[in-house]
C-alpha cells in the first residue's frame, strides 16, 4: 500500500525501513510502525481466527483491547501487535489457525453455532460418562489461542525499577500533561506514565481546532515539548499502568526502546498522590458481523491515516454515535477516502460546524440510522443500514465500515484503587461515586470533550494533587475549579446498546466469541447479574479481558432484564494490560544467606542445600549415607559449620522475667559458666524451639535458637511480654556471630593448640561455658555440648574472625586428619544419641511431654506465667497423644525409610528418623507413636510407601542407642 507522507502527525519514518517475516515472506514496514500497521500496510486484513468459531478477525482498534490482532511474535504468544513497535527481523505468526489464516479448515464451525449456545458444555458431553474424557481432549485442543513451547527460553533483558514520586500522572494526553505541568510548577517530583510511544493522547492525530489556527495535534506537541523539557517531570513512555494498590502504589511495565538496557521492565511507584487521566476508548457498536475484517473503530481508521500514513480502505460507510465520528469522516475524506455515507445514531445534538462541512463535501449523513449487518465472508463488501427501530433498511457496498457506538472511560486505574463507579444517565459513562484519597481524575474520562475543558480539568487535578499532599492550599484549587466550571461540561452520550438485530452473529465479546444471543440465553437460564453472566458465557474473560465487552455487557443486561436498577459494572482486576511473567519477575532474585565459611565449605567439597533462609553444606561427599564423615567424628575429630543457629543477647533488669515466661525451665537457677538446655512452647504446649541459655553476667544472657526460629524470636518475646512493661532488650546476633562445632575424641587436642585457656576436662567440664581468646586476639565463646554424643566444643566467634579460626583449627587438626562433616552426618550422629531436631522428631501438634522432654519443665514456676504450661498440665494425663520412642528393627539389615507409617488396622504413628547405624551396626530410629504403643518392648508394624502390604517389624527400645551413659561426651 502506498503511504500518505509528509504530515506533521506521522509517527513513521519512511526513510528507515524495517522488515518482518510473515508466512514465509519478508514484508517491509517503517520505523515507528507497529507490527499491526506494518502488516496492514502490506495488505494483510485477516490477523487471526477467533477462539470458538474460527471467524476471520482483523484490525479493529489500535490499543490492543481484543485478541483480534494478538499474534505470535518471535515465539511469544498473544503479542498485541497493535501496541508492539516493529523491530527488524521479527517473525510473526497468526494464532488459532488450522490450515492458513485465509483458508481456515475449522471455519465451518461458524455455521454450527446453534450447537454451542451459552454454557453448552455444562449440558453436554457427560452422557454416557465415557464420552467426557474424549470430548475433554478435543476441548483442550480447541481452547486457548497462543502456543508456547515447553522449552521456550526467554530472550532479552528484563529489569525492574522502584520509584517514589510526589505526583504520578497516569496518561500522557492533554489533561495528564496539564496536570503534570501544573504540579511540576511547584517543584515537586512528577512522573507521567504513557502507554503509547509518544505523548498526546487523542489530540496527537486530530486536526480539529484547539484554537483558531491551531489544530489539536499542534497543541498536543506544544504541551509534550513543555513536559519533556521540565526537569522535575520524569516521563515513562511505552509504559502501561497495570495495578493500583493501597496508599497509591502504582505498578506498570515499560517496553524498552532499541537503545535501552532492558527489553521490558517492571515499574513500581509509591506516589504521594495520583492523577488518572486515561481518557476514553470506544464502545463497540453491536450488529450482525460487527467484527468482520473491514469493520473498525473511528480512532483506528483515523490513526491509521494520520499516524501511519495508511488510508484504511477505498470506500467507507460510517456508523457512529458521536462527533468524533463526524470529525474523522471529514478528515479521512479530505485525505482521499471515499465516504458513501455517515449513519449517525443520534437524531440531534451534532456539532453544526461538522455537519456543514460534511454537507459541503456532499457526504450524506443519516440521522437515527445504524449499521445492522456487515456482509462479506472474509472482508466487508456491503453494509445494511437500518433505522433504529429496524423498519427501514438500506444496503451500501463498501470495503470499510467505521463503527462506534460511543465512548467509555478507561476507569480501570480508579477501580483498582477501590473506587466505586456508577452509571451516569446523561453521559452514558460509568463515573466514580467518590474518588479515593489522594487520587484525582481528569480529562475526557470525566465526560468532558471540549479542549479547553479538558485542559482545565487537568489543571484542577494537578492542583488538587498538590493540595492533597500539603504543597499548596486549596484556594488555588477553588479558583481553578471556578474557571473550569464556566467551560462546557459533561457531554451527552449515545446510549444505544445494539442495532436492531436478533444477535446470532452480533458479538459482544470478540475474544470468547460471545454473542448477544448467548447473553440472552444465559439470562433466560437464571443468570441475571452481569458478573454471573460473565462466568457462564465467558464474555470478558478472554485474553483482552473486559476491553471489548466491559461497558456493553452491563448495558445490555440492564436493558434485556428490563431491570429497574441501573447497569451494574463487572469487576476489573489487575493487571489492566496482560503482562509478561518475565517482566513481573524482573531481575529474578535468588536470595539466600551464606555463612561466613561458605567459600571454604564449598572448597572443602560441601554439597549445599537451600534450607530456610540459608545455604548450608549437607554432605561432604557423594556418599549421602555419610559413612566416612560419621565415623571420623566417632573415632577422630570433625568440624561442622553451625553458624545458622539463632543467637541473641537478652539483657536488662527484667531479662530473667522474660526468660522465665518464654522458656519452660527455671532460669533463676542459671549459674555463670554453665550452659542450660531448654525449650520454648506455644500456648498448646507444643514445642516451638529448643536451645541453650547462658548467663554471662547480672541481667545479661546469651541464648541460641534453632536456625529456623531465629527470624521469629524477637517478635515471639515481644508478643508474650507486651503488656508487662518490662525493661529488657534483645539483640539478634545471628549474623554477627558464627559457630564452629568441633567434635570427636581428638577435639580437645586440636582446640588446645590454638586456645589461650586451659580447656582440660577439669578446667572446662561438660556443660561448661567459657570465654577465652585465640592467639590473644579473637574472642571466643565456647560451650561443651553433647549433641553428636562425642567430646565436643561449640565455638561462637565474631563472623569476621570465623574463617581465621576455622583455618587455624584445620591447620591444628592436620596431624589428626581432621575433616569437615555436614548436616546429614550430624543428623545421624545425634539420632544415635536420641537427641531431637524440632520439625524432624516433632510436628505442629507435638508437645514437650510427647517428646520426653518433660524434665525440662519446672512446675514450680507459676504456671500461668510460663507460655504453654497451662496446656501441658491439661494434656499431661491425656492418653490420646503421640509419644516419641526409640525403635529397633527386627532385622538389622536396613532401617525403614523416614516417614514410614506405624500401623495395625489404623495408622498409629510414623518413623521420624531411622538409619542403619555405622557405629553399632543396628537399624534404629525414632518414631512418634500412639501412647499405648510407647512402652519398651512394644511390637510395631511398619508400613512403607510402595511396600505392597509387606510390613516391616520393629520394637520399641530405650534410647539412646549409642553410649547410653554419656561417657564419651564427658571425656
Amino acid at each position: 500500500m502506498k503511504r500518505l507522507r509528509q504530515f506533521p502527525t506521522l509517527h513513521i519514518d519512511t526513510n528507515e525501513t524495517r522488515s518482518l517475516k510473515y508466512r514465509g515472506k519478508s514484508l517491509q514496514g517503517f520505523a515507528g510502525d507497529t507490527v499491526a500497521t506494518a502488516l496492514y500496510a502490506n495488505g494483510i486484513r485477516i490477523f487471526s481466527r477467533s477462539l470458538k468459531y474460527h471467524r476471520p478477525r482483523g484490525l479493529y482498534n489500535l490499543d490492543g483491547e481484543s485478541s483480534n490482532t494478538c499474534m505470535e511474535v518471535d515465539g511469544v504468544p498473544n503479542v498485541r501487535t497493535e501496541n508492539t513497535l516493529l523491530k527488524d527481523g521479527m517473525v510473526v505468526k497468526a494464532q488459532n489457525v488450522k490450515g492458513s489464516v485465509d483458508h481456515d479448515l475449522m471455519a465451518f464451525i461458524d455455521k454450527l453455532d446453534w450447537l454451542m449456545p451459552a454454557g453448552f458444555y455444562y449440558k453436554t458431553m457427560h452422557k454416557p460418562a465415557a464420552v467426557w474424557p474424549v470430548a475433554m481432549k478435543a476441548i483442550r485442543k480447541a481452547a486457548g489461542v497462543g502456543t508456547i513451547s515447553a522449552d521456550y527460553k526467554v530472550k532479552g533483558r528484563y529489569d525492574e525499577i522502584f520509584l517514589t514520586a510526589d505526583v504520578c500522572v497516569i496518561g500522557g494526553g492533554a489533561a495528564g500533561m496539564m496536570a503534570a505541568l501544573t504540579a511540576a510548577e511547584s517543584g515537586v517530583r512528577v512522573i507521567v506514565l504513557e502507554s503509547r510511544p509518544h505523548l498526546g493522547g487523542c489530540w496527537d492525530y486530530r486536526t480539529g481546532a484547539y484554537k483558531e489556527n491551531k489544530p489539536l495535534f499542534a497543541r498536543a506537541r506544544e504541551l509534550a515539548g513543555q513536559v519533556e523539557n521540565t526537569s522535575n517531570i520524569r516521563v515513562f513512555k511505552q509504559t502501561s499502568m497495570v495495578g493500583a494498590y493501597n496508599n497509591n502504589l502504582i505498578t506498570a511495565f515499560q517496553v524498552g526502546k532499541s537503545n535501552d538496557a532492558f527489553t521490558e521492565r517492571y515499574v513500581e511507584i509509591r506516589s504521594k498522590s495520583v492523577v488518572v487521566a486515561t481518557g476514553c476508548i470506544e464502545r463497540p457498536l453491536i450488529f450482525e458481523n460487527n467484527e468482520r475484517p473491514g469493520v473498525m473503530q473511528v480512532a483506528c481508521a483515523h490513526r491509521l491515516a494520520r499516524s501511519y500514513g495508511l488510508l484504511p480502505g477505498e470506500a467507507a460507510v460510517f456508523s457512529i454515535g458521536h462527533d468524533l465520528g463526524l470529525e474523522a469522516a471529514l478528515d479521512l475524506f479530505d485525505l482521499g477516502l471515499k465516504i458513501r455515507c455517515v449513519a449517525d445514531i443520534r437524531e440531534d445534538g451534532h456539532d453544526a460546524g461538522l455537519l456543514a462541512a460534511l454537507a459541503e463535501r456532499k457526504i450524506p449523513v443519516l440521522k437515527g440510522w445504524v449499521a445492522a449487518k456487515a456482509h462479506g465472508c472474509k472482508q466487508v463488501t456491503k453494509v445494511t443500514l437500518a433505522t433504529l427501530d429496524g423498519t427501514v433498511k438500506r444496503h451500501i457496498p463498501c470495503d470499510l465500515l467505521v463503527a462506534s457506538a460511543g465512548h467509555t472511560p478507561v476507569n480501570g486505574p480508579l477501580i483498582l484503587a477501590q473506587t466505586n463507579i456508577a452509571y451516569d444517565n446523561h453521559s452514558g459513562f460509568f463515573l466514580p461515586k467518590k474518588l479515593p484519597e489522594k487520587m484525582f481524575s481528569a480529562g475526557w474520562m470525566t465526560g468532558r470533550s471540549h479542549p479547553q475543558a479538558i485542559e482545565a480539568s487537568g489543571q484542577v487535578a494537578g492542583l488538587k494533587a498538590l493540595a492533597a499532599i500539603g504543597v499548596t492550599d486549596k484556594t488555588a484549587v477553588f479558583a481553578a475549579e471556578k474557571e473550569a466550571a464556566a467551560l462546557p461540561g459533561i457531554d451527552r452520550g449515545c446510549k444505544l446498546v445494539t442495532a436492531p438485530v436478533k444477535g446470532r452473529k452480533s458479538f459482544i465479546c470478540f475474544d470468547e466469541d460471545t454473542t448477544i444471543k448467548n447473553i440472552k440465553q444465559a439470562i433466560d437460564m437464571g443468570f441475571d447479574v452481569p458478573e454471573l453472566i460473565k462466568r457462564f458465557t465467558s464474555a470478558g474473560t478472554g485474553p483482552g479481558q473486559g476491553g471489548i465487552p466491559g461497558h456493553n455487557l452491563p448495558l445490555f443486561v440492564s436493558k434485556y432484564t428490563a431491570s429497574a436498577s441501573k447497569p451494574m459494572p463487572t469487576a476489573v482486576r489487575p493487571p489492566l494490560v496482560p503482562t509478561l511473567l518475565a517482566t513481573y519477575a524482573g531481575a529474578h532474585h535468588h536470595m539466600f544467606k551464606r555463612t561466613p565459611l561458605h567459600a571454604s565449605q564449598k572448597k572443602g567439597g560441601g554439597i549445599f542445600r537451600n534450607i530456610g533462609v540459608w545455604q548450608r553444606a549437607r554432605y561432604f561427599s557423594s556418599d549421602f549415607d555419610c559413612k566416612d564423615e560419621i565415623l571420623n567424628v566417632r573415632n577422630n575429630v570433625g568440624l561442622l559449620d553451625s553458624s545458622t543457629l539463632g543467637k541473641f543477647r537478652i539483657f536488662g533488669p527484667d531479662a530473667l522475667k522474660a526468660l522465665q515466661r518464654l522458656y519452660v525451665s527455671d532460669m533463676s537457677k542459671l549459674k555463670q559458666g554453665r550452659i542450660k538446655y531448654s525449650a520454648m512452647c506455644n500456648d498448646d504446649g507444643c514445642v516451638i524451639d529448643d536451645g541453650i541459655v547462658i548467663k554471662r553476667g547480672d541481667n545479661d544472657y546469651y541464648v541460641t535458637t534453632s536456625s529456623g526460629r531465629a527470624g521469629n524470636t524477637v517478635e515471639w518475646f515481644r508478643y508474650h511480654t507486651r503488656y508487662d512493661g518490662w525493661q529488657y532488650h534483645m539483640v539478634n546476633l545471628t549474623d554477627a556471630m558464627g559457630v564452629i562445632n568441633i567434635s570427636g575424641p581428638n577435639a580437645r587436642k586440636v582446640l588446645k593448640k590454638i586456645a589461650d585457656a586451659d580447656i582440660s576436662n577439669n578446667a572446662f567440664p561438660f556443660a561448661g561455658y567459657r570465654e577465652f581468646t585465640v592467639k590473644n586476639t579473637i574472642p571466643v565463646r565456647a560451650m561443651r555440648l553433647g549433641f553428636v554424643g562425642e567430646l565436643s566444643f561449640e565455638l561462637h566467634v565474631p563472623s569476621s574472625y570465623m574463617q581465621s579460626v576455622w583455618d587455624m583449627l584445620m591447620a591444628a587438626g592436620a596431624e589428626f586428619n581432621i575433616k569437615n562433616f555436614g548436616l546429614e552426618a550430624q543428623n545421624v550422629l545425634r539420632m544415635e544419641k536420641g537427641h531431637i531436631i524440632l520439625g524432624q522428631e516433632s510436628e505442629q501438634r507435638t508437645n514437650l511431654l510427647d517428646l520426653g522432654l518433660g524434665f525440662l519443665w519446672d512446675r514450680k514456676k507459676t504456671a500461668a506465667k510460663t507460655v504453654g504450661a497451662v496446656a501441658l498440665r491439661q494434656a499431661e494425663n491425656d492418653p490420646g497423644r503421640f509419644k516419641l520412642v526409640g525403635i529397633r528393627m527386627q532385622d538389622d539389615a536396613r532401617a525403614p525409610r523416614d516417614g514410614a507409617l506405624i500401623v495395625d488396622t489404623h495408622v498409629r504413628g510414623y518413623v521420624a528418623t531411622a538409619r542403619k547405624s555405622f557405629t553399632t551396626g543396628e537399624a534404629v530410629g525414632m518414631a512418634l507413636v500412639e501412647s499405648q504403643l510407647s512402652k519398651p518392648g512394644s511390637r510395631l508394624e511398619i508400613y512403607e510407601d510402595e511396600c505392597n502390604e509387606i510390613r516391616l517389624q520393629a520394637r520399641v527400645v530405650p534410647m539412646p542407642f549409642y553410649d547410653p551413659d554419656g561417657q564419651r561426651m564427658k571425656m
Partner: protein
Amino acid sequence: MLFTYKSLWGKKPRLKSSYEVVIIGGGLHGLATAYYLARDHGITDVAIVEKRYIGFGGAGRNTAIVRANQRTQYNVPLYKEALDLWPVLTKELDFNLMFNNCGNLNLMHSEAAMKAARMTIATAQFHGVESHLIDAKQAKEMVPALNISEDITFPIHGAMYHPPGGIVRHDAVVWGLAKGCAKKGVHIHQQTEATAIHTQGGKIAGVTTSQGHIKTPKVLVSAGGYSAGVINHMLGLKLPISVLTIQAMVTQPLKPLLNHVVSSGAYHCYANQTLKGEIATGAHMDPWPNYTTQTTAHYIKHQAEALSDWLPCLRGVRFMRIWGGLADMTPDMAPILEGNDPIGGFYMDCGWGYFGFKSCSAAGKYMAQFIATENCPDMLKPFNLRRYEKHQLMGETAALVSYTPDN
C-alpha cells in the same frame, strides 16, 4: 429442542415464615448439604439464604484443584469420597462438572520434603488411594516444561504423583448443585442476608434475614470465610479461625502445555491449565488476617519469580487476571464440623482454609446426615470443635506453627 433456556433453579421462591432447616451461605458446602438433605433424608423444606449470589465467595474464587492426598488418616477418607463423587454428581445432577482427572504432581525440593512425601504417600496407599513418589527425571517426563536443573532457587528432588486428582470446573459445581437443590424443592434465596440467629432455651429458634423472619429448629452456618464472623456476631461463639486473603491468578489462554496439576511447597506455588487453556496459579496467603480480598503488587511479582524458576517457559506468557478470596484457617489446617454443641440445632461447617472446594461434596453429604439424624457420623467426629480446648491438634499440617498476634 436440543437446548432449552429455562432458569436452572426455577422461579425465584418466596421466603416462607418457617423452614425445617435454614442454611446460611449459598456456597458449595451449603448447596451440597441442602442437596443431600433432600436426596438422602427426604428433607426438602430447606432454605438457603445467600447475601450476594450463589458462588460469590470461595466457591467461585478457588482454583478448582481436587485431590485426596492429605496428611492424616482422618482426612484422607473424606477427601477420597469427595473425589469419587465428581462423576457420580455429574450424572445425578445431569450437569457436566467437567472433572479433568489429570492427576496431581507435588514437587519436593529437599530431603525433608521427600520424607514428608513418603509419609503422605504411605498414608494414601494404606487407605487405598493411589499416590507414588517419583524422581525429578520422571517428573520432567510427565511435565516437559519443568526445570529440573540444579541452579534454581529450590532444585527439584522428586515429586509426589497422585493420579486420582485433578481439576473440576468450580462454577459448574455451584450451578449443578443449585439446579439439583431447586429441583428437589429447596428454596435458594439470593440477595438475602441473614442478620440474626435466634435461640430459645439453648436451642435454635429462628433466623432473621433482610427479607423477613424465619422460624426454624435447625441452622447450618456454611458461609465460608465469613462463617467465623457470622457465628461470633450472631451467637457469640468464638472460633479458633483466622481469616486471610488468598490470591490466585491466570495467564492468557494457551494451547495445551500442562497436563497435570503441579504444585510446589517450597515455591509456595501451584500451576495447572484450565480447560479454557489458562494457566491458573496461586497459593499465597496474606501473612495477617483480613477480609479485604484485595490483591497485592508483591504477590503477582512473587508468583512470576517463582514460576520463572521452575516453569521457565512461562516467562513468555502473560498474566491477565488476579483475584483474591478468603481462607478461614484453623490452627491445624483441618475444618470444624460440629453440631448441637453448644447450641441445640446449631450446626457449623467451616474452617476449611483453602480446602473447601475439594471437600464440598463429601462434607455436604455427611453434614446432611448429621443434621437429619442429629448424630455426628463417624467420618466427621475427628473434626469436632472441642479438640482445640484439649490441645489435640489434628496434624494435618506438619510444620511448626508460630502463634503470633495474628492467630
